[in-house]
């Protein structure tokens, strides 16, 4: 009898403890999917402080750079246990339209301390779809002009693309046998990334062109678009101021070439500025690095029209997350002004105007004023679900031009036809 009683008491205690476990459950655990690299590192750097303040636990699920997007897509579709994802603004519209991300406006507007206006407006737009916000920017990316001060000084920095070409010739042995470098600069041409076409967009926009008209009909194959691609591919095909293997150059290739002083200057993403400034990673150029605005096109009134491209990385909440509230709190904290400081010192580039213009940080990150200036003119890509496909069509067209398979006109007309078909099928027009 006693035995039975003890057993019953024991069992009921067990039952009660099991049922009440969630009530006393330890702090919420949030799973954050990030990518290996500067953005992921910066997030890892702010996590300990967040855990200390809130008592919540953060599990970082870090994935490799290659195939990150694929893994993310599959994870979102399968509805795995991820509460926060680090993703590129290019996919915001696609994921949002597919119902893979949770809208965030409610979480954000209820909190006045967020100060959404402090973010670069282009960045908030990049993470918005049909008036709803699907992520907050953690990192802003744009293009800067990097040069080696051993070879050229501030006064020689090109203001326009014509000057850019002249300078490139000056540092190309073919034109100037005394040049310290064999080729003046580098451009990216390897397929599989958007960077090659990003450079072309920047030239196209500066020349006054547009990718689409207001009805989403392609405009990138008009006179300006063709002229811009003729200039960009001409750097290789016509003038030969870049190495002959540009069609296979990826980020690592152009970075290495500049770091090894094989080229005198390089237009590239601002995330690489941090790499060039680091004496350990770039012993040859770290102490003679110049950073400035990318060139543009001179306007009739004498001003320069510069149109650097911008996109960003940000944090969003998968629709399948079971901790949306906690996830939103985490995102708000990481993108807030307090964390931005840690984030910036860890090598990230927060998308907040107040942080990038804060003179306090300039001693650690001397490129910040230039970056803040660049972001004033920066232009974002169209934020539509079909962007990834459009981008791929343009990447292939660009690559075919660079190997001389098609002329810029032929390649862009073909691309325009494919893009028109695609958008027609998606219901943009008939």
């Amino acid at each position, binding site marked *: 009898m006693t035995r039975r009683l003890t057993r019953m008491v024991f069992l009921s205690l067990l039952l009660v403890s099991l049922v009440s476990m969630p009530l006393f459950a330890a702090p919420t655990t949030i799973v954050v999917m990030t990518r290996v690299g500067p953005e992921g590192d910066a997030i890892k750097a702010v996590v300990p402080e967040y855990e200390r303040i809130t008592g919540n636990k953060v599990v970082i699920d870090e994935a490799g750079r*290659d195939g990150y*997007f*694929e893994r993310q*897509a599959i994870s979102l*579709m399968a509805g795995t246990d991820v509460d926060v994802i680090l993703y590129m603004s290019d996919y915001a519209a*696609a994921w949002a*339209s*597919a*119902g*893979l991300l949770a809208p965030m406006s409610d979480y954000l507007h209820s909190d006045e301390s967020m100060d959404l206006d402090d973010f670069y407006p282009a960045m908030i737009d990049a993470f918005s779809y049909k008036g709803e916000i699907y992520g907050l920017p953690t990192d802003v990316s744009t293009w800067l002009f990097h040069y080696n001060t051993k070879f050229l000084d501030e006064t020689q920095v090109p203001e326009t693309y014509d000057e850019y070409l002249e300078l490139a010739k000056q540092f190309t042995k073919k034109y100037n046998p005394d040049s310290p470098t*064999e*080729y003046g600069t580098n451009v990216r*041409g*390897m*397929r*599989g*990334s958007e960077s090659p076409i990003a450079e072309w967009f920047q030239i196209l926009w500066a020349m006054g062109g547009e990718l689409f008209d207001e009805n989403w009909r392609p405009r990138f194959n008009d006179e300006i678009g063709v002229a811009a691609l003729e200039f960009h591919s001409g750097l290789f095909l016509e003038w030969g101021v870049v*190495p*002959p*293997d*540009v*069609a*296979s*150059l*990826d980020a690592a*290739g152009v970075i*290495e*070439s500049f770091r*090894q002083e*094989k080229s005198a200057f390089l237009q590239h993403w601002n995330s690489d500025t941090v790499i060039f400034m680091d004496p350990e990673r770039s012993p040859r150029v770290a102490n003679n690095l110049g950073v400035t605005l990318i060139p543009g096109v001179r306007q009739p009134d004498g001003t320069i029209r510069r149109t650097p491209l911008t996109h960003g990385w940000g944090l969003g909440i998968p629709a399948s997350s079971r901790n949306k509230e906690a996830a939103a709190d985490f995102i708000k904290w990481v993108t807030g002004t307090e964390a931005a400081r840690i984030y910036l010192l860890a090598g990230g580039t927060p998308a907040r105007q107040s942080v990038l213009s804060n003179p306090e940080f300039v001693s650690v990150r001397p490129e910040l004023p230039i970056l803040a200036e660049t972001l004033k003119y920066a232009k974002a890509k169209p934020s539509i*679900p079909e962007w*990834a*496909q459009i*981008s*791929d069509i343009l990447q*292939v067209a660009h*690559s*075919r031009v*660079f*190997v001389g*398979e098609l002329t810029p006109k032929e390649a862009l007309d073909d691309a325009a036809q494919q893009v028109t078909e695609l958008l027609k099928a998606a219901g943009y027009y008939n």
Partner: protein
Amino acid sequence: MPAHSNKSLQHNWFSRFIEKRFLFLLLLPTIIILLAVVVYPLGYSIWLSFTNATLLNFLTGFSFVGLRNYLHTLTRAEFWNSFRVAILFSGISTALELVFGFFLAQLVYNIKGAKKRSIVIACLLTPLMLTPVVVALMWKLMLDYQIGIINYLMSVLGLGRYPWLGDQTLAFWSLIISDVWQQTPFVFLILLAGLESLPQEPFEAARVDGASRLQVFRFLTLPFMSGPILVAVTFRLIDSFKIFDKINVLTGGGPGTATEALNVHMHRIAFRWFRLGEAASIAQIILVIIVLLTWLALRVSRISTDS
């Protein structure tokens, strides 16, 4: 006692079941795993290939479209370009690997001394131990125009420098070189095992009869080796037809579409174009081609053993 007999009956029934189904029970875990990771995904992918599923409508709903994906795929010039690239890549690299592999196998077979031989074999097998991505990254650095060691050595020798990965033809051949470098040891290993299991008598008889080396190779070694050769060729053909990793790292399918083999093309359709259904139709086409290749290889091997 009835209770006891009942128990023993039960026991007997159970042990008989175990005896009868023993093999089946042992195989059960494997069967379950195969069903879960092979049969189910394959069936699912076949089903997907008849739908208009994309990454964007996957959760919101997609529908059956019959053979539309297959018709669309088979009428696109890009698909046929990728098909050509895959066939050329697979054919040329397998042929080269076979020639080099056979040559190496003969060389090593003739080495006297077990220790010496095992050292050589270990060295030759190293490339095979590396993952394809590592191999591709290594070759990418070596083939770089400005900082690569291959161009450096060639310019020292006065042979000039070449944009190995930046030119459509060179990029294709660079891919082949990297694959041959890595996969020849595989062919070598199979052929060496084949050589070592050859019967000695016919060769001694040929020597007594005064056959030349070429005659021995042509009329004895080759026919005896047809089995191992076919095994190696079949494996290599199938494997290289499916190549993805090396291309993705070395050229990304470019320049232009010069190295966009079928798998790279399929990946592009699925993850750049989001078209899961269409990509699944390409996957089924690849599967059919591989089944045909295997069938052909088996047939050829039966004909050659019969003769």
